[in-house]
């Protein structure tokens, strides 16, 4: 399988190391969030409802689909397998989270006391959605876009697969 990247965008050793940091940072937070949301889908459904963005039937789907998507994206990012696709998806998720948090900050009639980003757990930011969550997600979005642009780097399964000699390269007898 040929690499997705043109030769000039193949990352060097230092950039590869940085891309590992980016991948693990995004995967760590998404995986942590997924773990807590999957523990209690009912609570996550009520949390989505509080944002008053989606109709009820989409809340039902989202309460299960979002955490499973987060979990799979986290897994693929950690392994570095299909990492660019996973990075695009994580960027999409993070943009939607930023939009949701910004919308409750703007709409005075919507009161959301808990972000529910990580279920009941609180890391980095307080429970109440605010600028801290937007900055946190923007940083993760930047990390995701770096992985989407440069790929997962040399320390990844994608790189291993791309570097593996193909049967066509075998010396002819």
């Amino acid at each position, binding site marked *: 399988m040929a690499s*997705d990247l043109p030769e000039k965008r193949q990352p060097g050793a230092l950039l590869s190391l940085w891309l590992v940091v980016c991948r693990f940072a995004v995967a760590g937070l998404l995986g942590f969030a997924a773990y807590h949301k*999957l523990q*209690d*889908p*009912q*609570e996550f*459904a*009520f949390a989505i*409802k*509080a944002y008053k963005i989606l109709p*009820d039937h989409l*809340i*039902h*789907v989202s*309460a*299960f*689909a979002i955490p*499973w*998507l987060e*979990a*799979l*994206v986290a897994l*693929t990012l950690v392994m570095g397998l*299909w990492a*660019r*696709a*996973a990075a*695009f*998806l994580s960027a999409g998720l993070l943009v939607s989270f930023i939009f949701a948090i910004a919308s409750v900050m703007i709409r005075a*009639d*919507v*009161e959301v*006391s808990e972000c529910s980003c990580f279920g*009941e757990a609180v890391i980095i930011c307080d429970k109440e959605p605010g600028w801290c969550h937007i900055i946190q997600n923007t940083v993760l979005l930047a990390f995701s876009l770096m992985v*989407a642009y440069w790929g997962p780097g040399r320390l990844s399964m994608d790189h291993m697969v791309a570097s593996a000699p193909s049967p066509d390269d075998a010396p002819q007898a």
Partner: protein
Amino acid sequence: MTSVMRAFSIIGVAMVAALVHSWLVGITIAAEGNEKTAQERFEELDGSGNGADLVDPVGQDPDPIDQTDPAQGTGGPVVGDPNAVSDPSLHIPLSLVRKIYADHIEQMTGEALLIDARGTEGVYEQGHIWGAEHITTDILMDDHPVSYAGVPMGAQERMALVSPDQWVIIYCGGGDCDESENLRTLLVDSFGLTNVWIFEAGYPGLEKAGLQTIGGSTPFGE
């Protein structure tokens, strides 16, 4: 192009996992409203057939409550009418709350349950309606320990003691709070209760209506 196809593959796998998960673990978003209004239900249960005495005579209420939800815009109840409700299948008017409170909560007959569903930490302890039990969605779903008639038990065990027809009135912080509706959804869909009502104006409305308030961590303030 390969990345786009791979992204769709990941989404597909996530959707299949979500589908299986939702099949295994049912959730509920919003329970159906009651078939009858609270007034009709009251007349049916009390057998009086005449609810006229429940309506506050015009001008008697010294300080009318605004139950209008500003978030709802049009379609809400009339400002200043304490008995107007925006959805008669979900909400109970103040006149009925007063009647049920006086007949059952104050008399401690055990035939009605007033629930304070406010989830913000410390607000119940700061002040609640006398006799109101503190049951939030978190307390119920996580089965936190509660005390009923001095007996410690889990919140789910407590709610399992409520008979389906028993009056259950829930209030939260008033205005746009979702806590009452979410709790009602759980009580109706998971506990099979059929007589669960929300008081829209919430704690501020009941306080303003003159119901006795008390601090502390138990319904009666101990």
